[in-house]
């Protein structure tokens, strides 16, 4: 197989509140022989909030981020669902509206950049699924997740709206996503089937309506727990910040303990590939798996 090479848009949380996400992404890329170039020039994507205030500014900043992947001549990969949606949404609007693209490029020209639309944008999960191939990952598993029930939590912004996401997520169906479950199976684990796997964690109203956020997280996590999940896994650091960090508040809202370990996608892959837990940043997770690694 030709060596895969990507420009990685880390997003903000992987540099701050979820350092373990960046650590584990780099660790598994290294182990799998995937070359990563960090886009250190990139700014925040606006996290689906900046566009509520200033749409044009949000569009220009996202276009600028993509420019840096284009300059490298590489596809861009994201490791946060919300970065993925915001970047893909900007790309879709610019690629389908030449007038808007010209307007944005007028701004970018002021700093010597031009958005062309030449780089694909996809979440790392789908790079692993569609470019690298799960069978190639499975053949390198040294520490299979045998007898562990793992509940995949997909996160909204990788699967919806599907007319936008299907360009880069292998045609994943928003009502019956399979990519994460298939990855769990490829790593030797038991994929837990539960209804809430494609639901919302409530992250985006955490400040203004913590009750809504906690109820949504509780519903999804209790569904996983009630289907005998031993742990959960998510490709989105924002879902992770809720489900890993906020369990105390979620339990209070639910009126029963919501107590389950939550892994980032690359942490799960890294465990199965036999990578040192320290390199995967497992010590940064608030919830612990209890696995003897």
């Amino acid at each position: 197989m030709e060596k895969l090479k990507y420009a990685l848009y880390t997003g903000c949380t992987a540099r701050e509140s979820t350092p373990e996400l960046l650590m584990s992404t780099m660790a598994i890329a290294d182990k799998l022989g995937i070359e990563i170039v960090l886009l250190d020039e990139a700014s925040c994507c606006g996290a689906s909030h900046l566009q509520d205030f200033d749409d044009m500014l949000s569009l220009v900043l996202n276009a600028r981020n993509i420019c840096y992947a284009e300059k490298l001549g590489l596809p861009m990969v994201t490791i946060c669902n919300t970065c993925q949606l915001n970047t893909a949404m900007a790309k879709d609007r610019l690629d389908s509206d030449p007038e808007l693209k010209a307007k944005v490029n007028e701004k970018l020209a002021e700093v010597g950049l031009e958005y062309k639309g030449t780089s694909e944008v996809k979440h790392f999960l789908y790079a692993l699924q569609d470019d690298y191939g799960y069978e190639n990952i499975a053949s390198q598993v040294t520490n299979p997740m045998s007898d562990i029930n793992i509940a995949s939590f997909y996160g909204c912004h990788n699967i919806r709206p599907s007319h936008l996401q299907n360009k880069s997520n292998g045609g994943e169906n928003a009502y019956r996503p399979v990519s994460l479950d298939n990855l769990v199976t490829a790593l030797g684990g038991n994929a837990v089937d539960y209804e809430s796997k494609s639901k919302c964690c409530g992250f985006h109203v955490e400040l203004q309506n913590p009750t809504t956020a906690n109820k949504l997280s509780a519903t999804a996590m209790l569904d996983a727990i009630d289907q005998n999940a031993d742990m959960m896994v998510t490709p989105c650091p924002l879902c992770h910040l809720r489900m890993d960090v906020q369990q105390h508040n979620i339990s209070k809202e639910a009126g029963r303990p919501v107590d389950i370990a939550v892994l980032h996608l690359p942490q799960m892959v890294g465990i199965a590939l036999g990578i040192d837990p320290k390199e995967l940043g497992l010590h940064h997770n608030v919830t612990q798996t209890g696995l003897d690694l």
Partner: protein
Amino acid sequence: MSIDTKKLTLKVFRFNKDTDYLPYYDTVEMEVSKDELVLDIMNRIKWEHDGSFSYRRSCRHGICGSCAIKVNKKPTLACKDRVFDLVDIFGEELVLEPQDIKRAYKDMIIDKENFWTKYNSVQPYLVADIDEHPEAENIVSQEDAELLDEADYCIQCGSCFYACPAVEVNPEYTGPAALVKAWRFNSDVRDTAVNSRLDSLQQLGSGIWDCVKCNECAEACPKELNPIDKITKLHQQTFQNERSLKNVAVRHAVGFKWSIKKHGILDEGELVRYSEGNIGVMKHIPEAIAMYKRGKIVMPWNMPKSKNLDEIKKLVEISSTARY
């Protein structure tokens, strides 16, 4: 069996509020052909299996919005969606349920009172001083009409409303359908109630800031109206019309701009402080301590910055269009 037909197992939600204590599911085996719609098989259940099976239907052309149900939890306008397309997703066992089983009256028929209450709450009509006996036509230009962004194509089927998780856990929330309707009139150049709608829709708990941004509404809408996009336009309009309140959600949206201008990437801690204010931020101390212990908090003096930050600062200066 020909590839043009498939033998399906249908599990059909049954409940009569007047006589049943609990709902139950009927199992119906049926040979379905490739062009049949979900409405066709509901008709066949009623005509061939059980005449008491109840559902709403009227136009059969995707315009009256009566026949919306859920199939395997997927919002489905029965007269629009092909059964074979659903089989492609879910396999040969399909579960037919009403939009919200908690609100079932009889089988697929639900009480949509909560939907209509929300709908009526946004002044869902044109508020304008229009001469009843005009001398000339009251013409709206093509350009102005396009501002509606197809929001007037909503058929009130409720697919988005009953797919919205915020509505499910927060009964106060106005929900996507009514907000699409609010945008339909708030984008109408003739309307004079724009700011009064914005003022009531900005209240925390019930209004536009309680959208959880899950995009379930965009996925559910059979007319592809992208309701969340209309909600975003309402957000933007509060700033354009200089009506925005100074609450935590508004400051959170605005705070991104200042944080990006300063560091390129977000300063997460500072954003929470800016949004909540110096007193409000105190309530986050317990989780901040838990995060600090796990090395999840970056101290201000260690805040990373994007490379080529000057470019970002310049772009923020020359591309900003909104004021707060």
